């Protein structure tokens, strides 16, 4: 390929790269985005082909709708295998996993990135989440506080189009600018939310001997709802519909498939922002894998080497170099770390690839005695949000709790209910039908997102030369991962909460860890002699953390590399701690903030 020059080169066409591209291009800069994966979802028809792929997929895992390219492979949860302490690494698929606990999350490498299959939760972090060290003596503080990020949260809520009610969030300690409203009213809470709210909201729940209040609270969603006429000082908000078919997807249609894909594109994906970025003049190069960040003698970045590939089974590639005034790595936590490690760049702190965090997701499931209307609506419209912060954070992780509208779907329902009834219990005919009608709508699933603290030993490294490579010959990421006592104790506390709530509900608790009940809970561990099992939440954070001190962090609070001042490294990898919210909104806010910093820098 021919070499290119531009003002700003951005690696990665996910939400972070898309927001930066749009904002910088709109300001008149010449922006080039390098996307390793394929261009999918450029048109309505192209997007629908992905939907049909997922509908026909035997295992409807997050990546099942989307391209997997040997030249830009994505990790897939189907590749995860159990690991033994002395055993060989897990080398299925893209990641090389050395354990001791398998890393449980995936991400997507193609246009739109992992927002193609995100849940849509667009939740601000709590003010306390930025100050874990100061308040609780664990983890680290962020170099910025909630108030620094507040205006950028507002910007991100516009970029994504967030539906929520301010009063709900104020109830759990989120602060807003005076008079602020979200772009859209909250997505209507499900029948299940109201059913659960009537029974649990305000109920005491004991954690470590102290009573706390259970709060069932609607969750801000990046999905189209009724626009709020009071938004933007009364100018209102116009929902953004599907790419290539803007009259579609103006409201959530309740397809109940947010993961792996929203068929209507009512749920936000970065495809929308990329579309706007393109209209603003940004150029997006697909199937273009960044292989090296080039460094000049003065320590600045002087180019990004790429391989532009064609052919899916046996890809061939041509090399090129992109030169720019400013460079942004927005390729995802693992990919940013991988590229920096491959380049020997930005790592004077030795923190690149370290401190990998996720929210281990602890499922609890039970049957209640009346139908809840499962498998209707977005995956989750409310959570139990009042336990995200508390003094127990000095001892163990806190948690936000997803109330799941899809019954035991994450365990394979209702397909597994059918096969269990037919092959296991020998049912057929009316008895089979009646069993399903009776049981599935009574399934109650709640999942706890547990915090992990930054641990330098939870890390991404490169596979050694001559070992595991992708189809372009690039090293595959090696993941060393464990779940520490802080989080294990949090799992135990979470489990105790679930047991109390199931008691109040009179629910039949079916939760069982380590029984082989589900192939999805790969992360088995013990705490105080009891078994637990979690799965990944897809919230990969921490691999190029921001900080005040160049010796302990990779980037500053503007996500600018301490080592190379014309390089920015953006995304959830910059988050020093993972906090108690799903990280997309926060990384989007950080991206908006960095766009402003780059504009000021180039002004």
């Amino acid at each position, binding site marked *: 390929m021919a070499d290119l020059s531009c003002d700003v080169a951005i690696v990665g066409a996910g939400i972070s790269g898309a927001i930066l591209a749009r904002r910088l291009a709109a300001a008149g800069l010449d922006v080039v985005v390098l996307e390793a994966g394929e261009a999918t979802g450029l048109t309505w*028809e192209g997007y629908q082909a992905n939907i049909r792929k997922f509908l026909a997929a035997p295992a409807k895992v997050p990546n099942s709708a989307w391209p997997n390219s040997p030249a830009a492979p994505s990790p897939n949860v189907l590749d995860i295998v159990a690991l033994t302490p002395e055993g060989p690494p897990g080398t299925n698929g893209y990641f090389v996993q050395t354990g001791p606990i398998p890393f449980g999350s995936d991400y997507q490498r193609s246009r739109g990135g992992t927002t193609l299959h995100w849940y849509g939760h667009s939740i601000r972090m709590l003010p306390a989440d930025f100050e874990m060290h100061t308040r609780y003596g664990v983890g680290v503080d962020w170099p910025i506080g909630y108030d620094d990020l507040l205006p950028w949260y507002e910007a991100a809520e516009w970029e994504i189009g967030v539906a929520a009610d301010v009063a709900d969030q104020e109830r759990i300690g989120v602060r807003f600018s005076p008079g602020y409203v979200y772009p859209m009213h909250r997505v209507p809470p499900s029948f299940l939310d109201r059913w659960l709210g009537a029974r649990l909201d305000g109920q005491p729940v004991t954690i470590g001997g102290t009573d706390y209040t259970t709060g069932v609270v609607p969750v801000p969603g990046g999905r189209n709802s*009724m*626009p709020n*006429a009071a938004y933007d000082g009364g100018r209102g908000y116009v*929902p953004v519909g599907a790419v290539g078919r803007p*009259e*579609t997807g*103006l*409201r959530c249609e309740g397809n109940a498939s947010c993961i792996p894909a929203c068929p209507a594109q009512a749920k936000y994906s970065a495809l929308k922002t990329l579309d706007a970025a393109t*209209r603003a003049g940004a150029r997006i190069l697909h199937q273009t894998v960044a292989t090296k960040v080039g460094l000049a003698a003065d320590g600045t970045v002087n180019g990004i080497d790429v391989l532009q590939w064609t052919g899916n089974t046996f890809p061939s590639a041509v090399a090129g170099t992109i030169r720019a005034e400013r460079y942004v790595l927005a390729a995802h936590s693992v990919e940013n770390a991988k590229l920096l490690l491959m380049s020997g760049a930005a790592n004077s702190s030795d923190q690149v690839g370290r401190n990998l965090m996720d929210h281990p997701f602890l499922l609890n499931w039970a049957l209640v005695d009346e139908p809840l209307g499962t498998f209707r609506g977005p995956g989750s419209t409310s959570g139990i949000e009042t336990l995200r912060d508390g003094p127990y954070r000095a001892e163990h992780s806190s948690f936000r709790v997803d109330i799941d509208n899809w019954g035991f779907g994450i365990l394979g329902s209702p397909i597994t209910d059918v096969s269990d009834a037919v092959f296991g219990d020998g049912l057929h005919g009316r008895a089979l039908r009646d069993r399903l009608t009776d049981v599935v709508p009574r399934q109650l699933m709640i999942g706890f997102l547990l915090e992990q603290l930054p641990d330098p030993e939870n890390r991404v490294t490169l596979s050694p030369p001559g070992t595991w490579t992708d189809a372009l010959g690039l090293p595959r990421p090696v993941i060393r991962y464990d779940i520490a006592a802080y989080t294990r104790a949090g799992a135990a506390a979470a489990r105790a909460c679930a047991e109390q709530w199931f008691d109040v509900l009179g629910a039949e608790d079916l939760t069982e860890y380590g029984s082989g009940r589900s192939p999805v809970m790969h992360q088995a561990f013990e705490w105080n002699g009891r078994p637990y099992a979690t799965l990944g939440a897809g919230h990969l954070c921490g691999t190029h953390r921001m900080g005040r001190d160049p010796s302990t962090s990779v980037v500053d609070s503007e996500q600018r590399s301490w080592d190379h001042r014309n390089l920015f490294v953006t995304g959830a990898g910059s988050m020093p701690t993972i906090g108690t919210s799903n990280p997309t909104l926060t990384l989007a806010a950080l991206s908006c903030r960095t766009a402003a910093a780059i504009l000021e820098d180039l002004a």
Partner: protein
Amino acid sequence: MTEPATTALRTRRGHRRVPPITDLEALRGALQTALQLEHATIPPYLCALYSIRPGRNVEAAAVIESVVMEEMLHMVLVANVLNAIGAEPAIDRPDFVPRYPATLPHSDGRVIVRLQRFSPAAVDCFLRIERPEPVTAPPRAEGYHTIGQLYAAIELGLQVVSAQRQIFTGDRERQIAGNDRVYGMAGGPVLVDDLASALHALSIVVDQGEGIDHTIHDGDAPLGEPPMLAHYYRFDEIARERHYRPSDTPRTGPTGPPLPVEYDSVWPMRTDPRASELPPGSDVRGMTDSFNAVYTELLRQLHRGLNGEPDQLGTAVGSMWALRWQAEALLRVPLDSTGDTAGPTFEWAG
């Protein structure tokens, strides 16, 4: 959008004739006729749309769907005018529903609309429904031939009657305004509180159907997109299996790229089905009765939604989706050895 005429007593097409509507009761009656007319076109369009097999006739299906969405907007616009003049749109009653094959309400009876599969006959029927008003056609509220004649009569009537007295006395809260509850189509509902806004609302209905000023366009041009075709010309694209270009005219016909149509890729729905023709107690009768129960419930929701309970329009959205899936199932059920399949009958189930 063209400026509505507000001063001269004339239609936008320049008629200077004895107005057929001269009193408020007749005006309300004609608007109720328009409401029924807008609704009467929807079941035939939906039959054609839902009879198309999954993934086939993609462009034709998108055309029909876009027209249906705008017909629903038209119902809202006409209801707003009715509410503005203190009348109550009447939807929740058996005689609101045509018995297909049907003539258009209060028309000259020359256009017969049927419930039938996507076919050349169906497309021809749609063209007859949406046919532009010839320059010479007089406004008529009774015995009209084109829909444009009916609306021309209403436009004249509005001018005449509002000149006699204040007729815009209705409670504004009963109208649907903004894009909150009605979305997914070009343009949105217009709040009606005087003659100008009433004429504007009705001009949207007529322009989206037959085009403005004898062009192929409907006056809507979403930002950065080509101008929208009026319904007649959208259907004409299907009939002639070719796209219009923006510069085309009614005289040139479509000169753009081909629009492929496969009339074979369709469930072979029996034309104008009726529940009463299906054996009582049969499964397919049960499915049909169930469809009609939801359809009737939908009409009741629309009635309440357009009579002061706008939240009901939100509920109606769920009924519309449910109807679609029920209709699609019916369309796959063979009736007998002819291979004809059942289909939605769109009957009032009171």
